């Protein structure tokens, strides 16, 4: 190989390396966020309640926010806008789904927790966000969320906000199936 070919080969290898690195960044970001909870994502499957002593010396305010949009004629409302909880204890709150549209639609609520430091300390036993919902036209539905804040929640956190954003799930059943693996939270 001539020296020019050697340099070009090395540069192209570096280039391919950067392409691989870019592709790897996506799963790396997910893993990083899962470990640190930095993007406010919470586990998308039910987690068992940890039985631990309830820290009655401490109150944490948990607020619930909902957002609809993306062309889904639904309304999602928390029946309790905020609750004051002791870390360690499990609580149940209710959310109301209403379909204002004139046809049956399927939707999915995606949760997000802020501050992100709290996202690893919020455990959910029951949540409508674990699967898609199907609402007939005009249907009204109340669904529970059962959650627990673990006692090792950082001292600096006094308020935790749990936000749900409603997205339409495809009405087409085959498309709907394809949307299912997305539950795993993969990119």
């Amino acid at each position, binding site marked *: 190989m001539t020296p020019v070919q050697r340099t070009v080969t090395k540069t192209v290898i570096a280039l391919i390396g*950067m392409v691989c690195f870019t592709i790897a960044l996506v799963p790396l970001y997910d893993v990083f966020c899962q470990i640190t909870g930095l993007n406010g994502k919470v586990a998308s499957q039910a987690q068992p309640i940890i039985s631990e002593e309830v820290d009655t010396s401490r109150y944490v305010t948990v607020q619930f926010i909902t957002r609809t949009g993306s062309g889904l004629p639904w309304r999602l409302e928390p029946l309790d806008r905020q609750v004051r909880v002791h870390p360690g204890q499990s609580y149940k709150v209710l959310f109301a789904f209403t379909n204002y549209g004139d046809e049956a639609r399927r939707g999915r609520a995606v949760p997000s927790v802020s501050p992100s430091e709290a996202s690893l300390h919020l455990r959910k036993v029951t949540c409508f966000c674990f699967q898609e919902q199907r609402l007939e036209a005009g249907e009204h539905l109340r669904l529970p969320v059962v959650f627990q804040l673990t006692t090792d929640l950082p001292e600096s956190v006094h308020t935790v906000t749990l936000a749900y954003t409603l997205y339409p799930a495809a009405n087409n059943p085959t498309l709907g199936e394809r949307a299912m693996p997305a539950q795993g939270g993969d990119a």
Partner: protein
Amino acid sequence: MAPKLPPKAPLEHGNSITGGASAHEGEHHYRSGPLRWLLTTNHKEIGTLYLIFSLSMFMVGGIMALVVRLELFQPGLQMVQPEFFNQMTTMHGLIMIFGAVMPGFVGLANWMVPLQVGAPDMALPRLNNFSFWLLPIAFVLLLSTLLMPGGGPNFGWTSYAPLSTTYAPPSTTFFIFSLHMAGISSILGAINIIATILNLRAPGMRLMDMTLFVWTWLITAFLLIAVMPVLAGVLTMMLLDINFGTSFFNAAGGGDPVLFQHLFWFFGHPEVYIMILPAFGIVSVIVPTFARKPLFGYSSMVYATASIAVLSFTVWAHHMFSVGLPLVAELFFMYATMLIAVPTGVKVFNWIATLFRGSITFETAMLFALAFIVLFSIGGFSGLMLAIAPADFQYHDTYFVVAHFHYVLVPGAVFSIMAAVYYWLPKWTGHYPDERLGRWHFWLSVIGVNLLFFPMHFAGLAGMPRRIPDYALQFADFNMASSIGGFLFGFSQLLFIWVIVKCVRGGVKAPARSWDGATDLEWTVPSPAPLHTFETPPDMRRIES
């Protein structure tokens, strides 16, 4: 080690450098007309093509900027619809970055790197031709999206998802394709430049003998290799999200829009240094020439450039202070960003120290280089203000940001390209540019650019948001001043074209060493530089004494 500019004593006597060149000159003119330009593999011709392309894109992007400034001349909606306004801001950014500034620097590299390292041509001449011709195709495609149903890209040059995926016009796929092509062109250009600099230096020229322009371009080329694949990757993910139902950036499907911002700025921050490092190199050759002193602190300049390049990979999230980063990350990115001010400060110090007690003359090239030092520093200071994470929550997405990056890009990158054009025009055309017109061009540009961008600082600090076609009444005076400055700056560029055309057609004949204080290798070849130079490499080995 005592690094200095290339030794010139053995070269001035070396008539073999160009002696061989003229013999070959005739036989390469067998092709004429457009095919000659389409098929050329000559680094000087390709450099010229790049520069002409860059200048024309500068004009197209400039017209879009004037549409924006015309709309913002007064509050309320006057001239264009908000949808079209958004397309104008987006296309202005894309065209100026990928179509004007980057090809401008690549064109200068094509022309000057082989001449400054004593190489006969670029290492990979055919690849060079290919990487140029990708660009016109890419930008015709990009511009054609303006005519498509739904219009062109309207989500800002940063194309944040989901604005650029879920809510984007249908033409976005074409936008992605054209940026892919521009990116491939940049990557191929970078490979070529690295291969040229590392392999084709004249015998005896060590890395630390190279001019700063060559050095900064070498480092820039490595940055391009490192981050262009990231841009390609993030654009491909957008493409998949739009057309193939994936959810990289779609929260509904488990993706994360913030991931887009991380990936984009991991490319985007090194990208802004790609647009300024060659400018540092240009100023570092022009200032010593017209101060008639060797560059102060040559090796510290090289190390400062390299450390800016390395640090550029650790600061990307300072563009994202307000997305909800944890405190630790805010602090890390704030301090890392401020750290970059240190090597940049070294550079500014060195330029000033080079000027100190020099015998300075103020040719147009030098005027632009001096304006660069002053005005780029203003942009650097506002960058430091933006780096303060708590303050950035106030400045984020306001006109303060617009003022900052335009100060580093227009009187920074663009002025350096203009300085380079005035500096090297005698070498390219064999004629000196018209100094009187050049001074007019310079002063109108400097006044225009400051009138255009300085008031934006105040509008931004007072809270005027970016990328909005209308604004509250209290910003009216600032915006009117900006618009007047914009038109002054825009139209004074017609003078620039006039100077170039006039210089190509004739003027005062320039000798090989066109400037009194010029010592680099390119001034040893005749002016205008013949098509083939350094076919016998100049001998740069030092005479041991």
